Every structure is written in C-alpha cells, then in structure tokens.
C-alpha cells in the first residue's frame, strides 16, 4: 500500500475507486486480528449483577405502567371535569311543577265541584223534595211556630 493511500486512511479522506478496491482486497485477506478476536472469551456477568438488572427492569416497567395509569387517570378526571363544566353551562329546561299543578287543578276541581254539586242537588231534590235553592229544611219556619 502506498503512502498516499495510508495518509488518506488516517485522515479519513474519500478514496478513489481504485484505492477503494485496494482497501477492500486488503480487508478481505486473512488477518491476524480476526483470528485473535475470535479466540477471545466472552465476559459473563455475575448472578448478582443480573439480579440487580432485573430489579431495575421491573422498576422501569412499573414506572412506565404507573405513568400510563397516571396519564389515563388524569385524562379521565380532566374529561369528567370538562363534561361537568359543559353540562353546567348548558341552558336547562325550566321545570315549573306549580304552574302545571295550577293549570291542571282548576280543571280537575271544576269537574269535581260540578259533579259533586250536581250529585248533591240531585240527591236532595229526590230525597227531600226540596231544592237547595229554596233553603234549608232544618231551620224552623215562623209559620210552624
């Protein structure tokens, strides 16, 4: 490999097509590094390390779930509050029970009264032979005295 290419590699400069090819060929050839690296052993963390990691993961999982619940919870509260606000602001239909009663009562009482009075009149007329308009029969007349 020529010194110009070496300098380009160190300086991380763009390579020409020929230089790139030369580099590819060099990298594809057998290397001590690759042979050595494949022989290195993997690290194996301790059980205590793994246990500590598990606890952190559970904590992270719980924190995420809690934040989700908090997010949902606060969302529900806000929605409910907004709904209540809207309901409070809506114009309510005026319910006037007295007026309804007042309106219906005279009708009812008129009918009742007329029925009752008609019944009484009929009863008196048929039973005593005296019309109510002629006065009461309980009071003694001056003629009978």
């Amino acid at each position, binding site marked *: 490999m020529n010194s110009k290419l070496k300098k380009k590699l*160190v300086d991380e400069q763009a390579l020409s097509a020929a230089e790139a090819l030369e*580099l590819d060929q060099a990298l594809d050839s057998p290397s001590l590094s690759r*042979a050595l690296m494949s022989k290195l052993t993997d690290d194996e963390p301790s059980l205590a390390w793994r246990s500590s990691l598990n606890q952190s993961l559970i904590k992270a999982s719980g924190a995420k779930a809690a934040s989700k619940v908090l997010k949902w919870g606060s969302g529900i509260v806000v929605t409910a509050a907004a709904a209540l606000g809207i309901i409070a602001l809506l114009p309510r239909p005026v319910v006037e029970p007295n007026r309804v009663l007042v309106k219906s009562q005279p009708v009812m009482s008129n009918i009742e009264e007329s029925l009752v009075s008609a019944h009484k009149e009929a009863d008196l007329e048929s039973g005593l032979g005296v019309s109510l308009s002629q006065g009461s029969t309980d009071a003694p007349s001056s003629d009978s005295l």
Partner: protein
Amino acid sequence: MDRLGVAYLGARKQIDLATEQALVAQCRRQDVQAFGKIVDAYQGRVLGFVRRMLRSEEEALDVTQEVFIKAFQSVARFDGRSSLRTWLFRIAHNLCVDRARKAERTPDQHSLDAASEADDAIEFSDSRWSPESLVMNDELSEVVEQALGTMSDKLRTVLLLHDREDMAYEEIAAAVDVPVGTVKSRLFLARAHMQRVVGGYLEMDGRVQ
C-alpha cells in the same frame, strides 16, 4: 436451538430473526421476562464490548446495565430497520462515548497519535494467521487486550464490532454513525496496529517463523 429460539453458535448465543421479532413485540408491552431472554443472549457480548471500550470492570458493569435499561425503556421506538444486535451495540457505543466525555477524558486519550497510526498502516495480510493455528492462552490474551488498549477508541470500536462481533460494514456504520468507507479505513488501521503489536509478540515468542 432451544425452545426459546436461542441458538448457541460456537460458544455464543444468537437469537433467530423470528424469535427476535416476537420478543421485541412482547417487550413493547413491557414484558420483563421476554426482555430477559434478550439480556441472556447479549449480556456477555455487550459487557465484553463495553469493558474493552472503558477498561474499568466496575464502570463496564454499570454501563452494561444502563444499556439494557435504556433499551428496555425505548424498545417501543425500535423500528426493526437494523437488527436488535446492531441497535444494542449502538446504545452501548453511545453510552461509552458519553462516559468518556463525562470523565473529561478525550476519546483518544489512550490512542496513538496520528503519525504513529500512519506508521501502523502496514500490510497486515498474512496467511500464517488462522484461527486454527492460534492457541489463545492467558499471556496471548493479555497481549491482545493490551493491543486493544493502546488503540484509539474509534479504531477499537470498529475492530471489536467487525472482527469480534462479526458485524457487517453497513451495520457498524449504522451503529457508530459514520460512512461505510470510514468504517473500512478504521478497520484497516486497527488491524495494522494489532498486527504490529501481537504479530511482534508471536514472532518473538517463536510461534511463527
């Protein structure tokens, strides 16, 4: 392959793609047990990478935990465009870089200077080196670790991901966020450095003529 879809290729665990996708889907629902299977498959490899990047056992254990916690917390954002392995090593690489910055250590503190790296850029192709012909003992292992330790972070990252983790150039480029051409340049320089340090030791040791 066991019933969990975890294969043991050589001494290393590897999850097949279908199992990986199923596990990721479970992890998105915050399934700690499913994520545990991912940890089982990758903990040793991620720890090995992080330890060689930071060279402090204690710090490496902390950062490796951080890698998996971060991965678990952000698994919903994993879009599957890269492999899970590439994604995990990207997180690991980023955290190592962050640690180096926090420790006010320049990324290349342990590196050789540019001139020295240029000197390293020798021909490293050598058919004498094959995995079969090399017997890794504690002493050789130590020399290899030293060679890694005297390499710049950027070269070491690429070397570990390519020659150790068998990642493709494109995967490394995605993990480290550099162009593919830069990955190749760095790999060349890293191998040249390894050749110089370890090759010299092997020749002195009489393992090769």
